[in-house]
């Protein structure tokens, strides 16, 4: 029975071949001829506002690969680790594939017709009984431009309510109001090229190393090439960004207001300002002070800007001596003087970059104004390589939320509902009676969920976002959603989330390249992509969902499209002509994104700058032409320091700051579905200063109980992690859906922007 040697060899060869064949059947990525058969398409990354381009490889109706797009100017083939695993976010095991309707405590599968019939009936019933302001849409900076536009048109032009808000209210609203109050036009004048061209970078409340990874590596490369480049990181927490910066300037939370005024103080006192620039391009104004914190329901605030003179402004700044700011902020006075001189150094090309530290701030609008003040005083603005630049966190916070204007007070392209001319223009483009568009803004995001809690809003539809993990003071709003009494919550998403938990109807959505899309990134770059794969099961795009509701509510005539995406874009483009011009759709199909205004096929790198911005005439140099009210000048605002809504006291002695980490994105619903990322960073921790821990007898990794006036959470302490909390501060990331840190956050917001302050509230820490 012994096998001969030859037979044995034959048998083993057959076994090997069989095993190999089996392997390629099991692994779709292994194809006989390598990459052959994979079709590649372009798309922007689904995550942050950087807007990296990726190539998506499709085979057999499934995404089999993604890679950085070498032709994309933003990232030139690179990605961060989230972008690297992009394709996996669509293929989590628990993808929602069927509409689900709540029956008691259970969510029961239903057909689209059943679900949409139920939703339409709830909308009709609520509108009939309680008026159009009893229904609301809560969307996101992850909506494609088409989806945001359709929702805006349906709610403002169809249903007749301004109850539409994006989650961008929680992340970019202060940047918007900052731009609007200073320049009367939203979005930055500069672009990412400034990261290559400048030589001095002031970072304010931005952990670029983790939250804008590809842009950060670009800035660092600039320093590698030019040893004169200086990166100064102002922060309240020592981050990976601080680690690589030339200087880390630690300041006490909220005192950025005083610091920026002190920097302006020094610039004026030492006559470092650009007098010619100020005379030509700047006016001075003062607004209301002691403006409150939006803590009470139905909080309302209207600023009352008064023109002041340069001398008035100088007088206003007298108080903000480096010594005074030093006392508040903890930054040595000499350091403030040194950095003010650096800001004003005529030989330096200075940029300021900021993110949520500025925007999620109870004086977010003010602090945005104050950083512009410094750039306007020194004239370091609207020039290649020197600009203030607000970075964004969502792929289309700019493109959809801000440019399309899916806020309660906005209409597309910087227009507002309170302006009759703007309403008229919108009504004309939409072909409706102008009276259909209500003239009063209703609720900002926080107020919208307060209204749901009170019962003033009955039906709320949330698309492409996860408010019941991301809102501040979560306990109130999570409970509010389930109070019954006619409240009806619809959540469209791709996975079960903390928000689908409280939903009455869950709709399965198509995501990213499962539909055609258009995003706008932080440097005004619009990027288009085509649908490349089918959504799983019965999942459908949010655009289809919104238009289906419109049809069932009798507003189908607003959406008479055959090729909805393209036609919506061309319709929306009409709003942008003459200011924030977008190119024709076909141009975006070909390009790896274009930065608006795109006039005569040419994109704009630097707004308000002669030779770059088509709206600036020859000889003008710089012109802030959008601020017609002030004769094309930008506004320097006298904005004082005012304390945070809640500061540490004896009972709650720590500042709590929340934020992001590189691996996870926002509430982690997508990155949490990537096993590799989940393994790399599985759970939230509480960063704490070792001295505080030592004083309290807390050891590294030990569990602590963190309590605010609004909630309690138990987390392991991290004394030596990637982020190092300063004394008296703790930091917790908000991606972990099993640890809802936002339950502790205060729902105070900037009265002007309506953006909540997730960076500052008072907590106590005890051993758990």
């Amino acid at each position: 029975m012994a096998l001969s040697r030859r037979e044995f060899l034959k048998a083993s060869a057959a076994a090997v071949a069989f095993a190999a064949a089996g392997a390629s059947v099991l692994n779709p990525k292994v194809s006989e001829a390598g990459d052959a058969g994979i079709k590649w398409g372009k798309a922007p990354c689904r995550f942050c506002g950087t807007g990296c381009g990726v190539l998506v490889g499709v085979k057999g109706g499934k995404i089999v690969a993604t890679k950085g797009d070498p032709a994309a100017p933003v990232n030139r083939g690179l990605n961060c680790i989230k972008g690297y695993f992009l394709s996996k976010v669509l293929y989590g095991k628990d993808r929602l594939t069927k509409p689900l309707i709540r029956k008691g405590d259970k969510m029961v599968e239903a057909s689209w017709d059943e679900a949409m019939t139920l939703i339409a009936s709830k909308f009709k019933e609520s509108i009939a009984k309680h008026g159009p302001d009893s229904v609301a849409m809560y969307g996101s900076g992850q909506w494609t431009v088409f989806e945001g536009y359709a929702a805006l048109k349906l709610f403002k032009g169809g249903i007749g309510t301004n109850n539409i808000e994006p989650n961008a209210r929680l992340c970019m609203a202060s940047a918007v109001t900052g731009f609007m109050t200073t320049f009367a036009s939203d979005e930055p004048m500069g672009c990412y090229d400034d990261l290559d061209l400048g030589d001095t970078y002031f970072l304010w409340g931005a952990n670029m190393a983790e939250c804008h990874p590809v842009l950060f590596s670009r800035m660092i490369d600039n320093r590698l090439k030019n040893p004169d480049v200086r990166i100064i990181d102002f922060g309240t927490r020592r981050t990976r960004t601080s680690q690589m910066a030339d200087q880390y300037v630690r300041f006490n939370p909220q005192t950025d207001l005083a610091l920026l005024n002190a920097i302006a103080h020094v610039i004026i006192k030492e006559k470092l300002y650009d007098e010619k620039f100020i005379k030509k391009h700047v006016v001075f104004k003062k607004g209301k002070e002691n403006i409150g914190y939006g803590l009470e329901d139905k909080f309302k605030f209207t600023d009352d800007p008064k023109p002041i003179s340069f001398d008035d402004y100088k007088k206003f700044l007298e108080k903000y001596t480096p010594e005074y700011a030093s006392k508040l902020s903890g930054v040595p006075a000499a350091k403030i003087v040194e950095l003010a001189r650096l800001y004003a150094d005529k030989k330096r090309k200075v940029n300021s970059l900021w993110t949520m530290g500025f925007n999620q701030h109870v004086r977010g609008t003010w602090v945005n104004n104050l950083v512009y003040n410094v750039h306007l005083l020194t004239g370091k603005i609207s020039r290649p390589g020197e600009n203030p630049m607000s970075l964004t966190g969502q792929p289309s916070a700019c493109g959809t939320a801000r440019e399309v204007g899916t806020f309660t007070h906005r209409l597309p392209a910087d227009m507002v509902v309170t302006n009759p001319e703007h309403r008229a223009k919108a009504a004309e483009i939409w072909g409706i009676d102008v009276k259909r568009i209500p003239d009063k803004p209703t609720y900002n995001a926080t107020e919208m969920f307060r209204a749901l809690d009170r019962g003033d809003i009955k039906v709320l539809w949330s698309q492409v976002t996860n408010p019941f993990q991301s809102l501040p003071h979560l306990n109130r709003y999570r409970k509010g959603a389930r109070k019954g009494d006619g409240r009806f919550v619809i959540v469209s998403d791709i996975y079960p989330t903390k928000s689908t938990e409280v939903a009455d109807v869950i709709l399965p959505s198509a995501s990213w390249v499962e539909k055609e899309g258009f995003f706008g990134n932080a440097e005004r770059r619009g990027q288009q992509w085509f649908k490349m794969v089918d959504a799983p099961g019965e999942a459908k795009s949010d655009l289809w969902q919104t238009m289906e509701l419109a049809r069932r509510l009798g507003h189908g005539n607003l959406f008479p499209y055959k090729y909805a995406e393209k036609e919506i874009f061309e319709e929306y483009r009409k709003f942008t002509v003459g200011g924030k011009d977008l190119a024709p759709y076909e141009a975006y199909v070909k390009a790896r994104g274009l930065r608006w205004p795109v006039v005569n096929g040419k994109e704009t790198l630097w707004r308000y700058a002669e030779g770059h911005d088509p709206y600036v005439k020859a000889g003008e140099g710089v012109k802030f032409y959008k601020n017609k009210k002030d004769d094309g000048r930008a506004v320097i605002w006298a904005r004082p320091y005012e304390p945070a809504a809640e500061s540490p006291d004896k009972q709650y002695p720590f500042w709590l700051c929340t934020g992001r980490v590189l691996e996870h994105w926002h509430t982690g619903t997508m990155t949490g579905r990537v096993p590799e990322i989940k393994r790399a960073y599985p759970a939230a921790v509480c960063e704490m200063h070792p001295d505080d821990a030592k004083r309290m007898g807390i050891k590294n990794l030990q569990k602590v109980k963190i309590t605010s006036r609004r909630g309690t959470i138990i987390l392991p302490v991290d004394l030596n992690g990637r982020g190092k909390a300063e004394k008296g501060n703790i930091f917790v990331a908000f991606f972990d859906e099993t640890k809802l840190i936002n339950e502790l956050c205060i729902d105070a917001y900037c009265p002007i922007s309506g953006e909540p302050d997730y960076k500052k509230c008072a907590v106590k820490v005890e051993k758990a």
Partner: protein
Amino acid sequence: MDSSTKHSGITRRRFLKDGVLLPLALAAAGGGVSTLFLRRADARGFYLRPPGALEEGNFLAACIKCGKCAQACPYNSIRMSGAEAGVAIGTPHIIARETPCYLCPDLPCAKACPSGALDRKLEDVEKVRMGTAVIVDRENCLSLRGLRCEVCYRQCPLIDKAITILPRHNQRTGVHSIMEPVIHHDKCVGCGICENACVRDKPVIVVMKSPPEQKDYYEF
């Protein structure tokens, strides 16, 4: 009483045969077989021992395989090896890719060791030396390819000490920097958190007993 003598009494011959020779033969065989096992454990591959472990030979000499260290570990990082480990059967080790050592500040595992196989006088986690991380596959390291990964660096409990980032110009894109994780073997404690966190299917950074020897000179 004859029968009972026959049953329980011991003849000299039986004593010699069963009482001395046989057990001696068995014991000698056992000793011989086990001596064959007494090759250095790293000949069978490197075992990542719990913090405070003696050098492998001494560790194997002192470990009595009681499992108290494994029971003391709050993360279940420490496992007891099975028969596959040969001479190291029943000894504690860590499979970093599955659960690494999280470096509890009070080192409960080392404190639990009765026999001195783990140094229970060890107080400072930064003095732990279990091994050292090595990037074994530079081609497949995402950070070295310019992607912003650096998960190993950010998850390192000795961040900026055991692993630092060395930015280099990325020639391919021309405007970005490659953030290269650099391991400092004199600081690395070998906890394996980087190996655990690495996002590649096969981790490109792994803990080894010691870094591969690199000689700058030619040895004749």
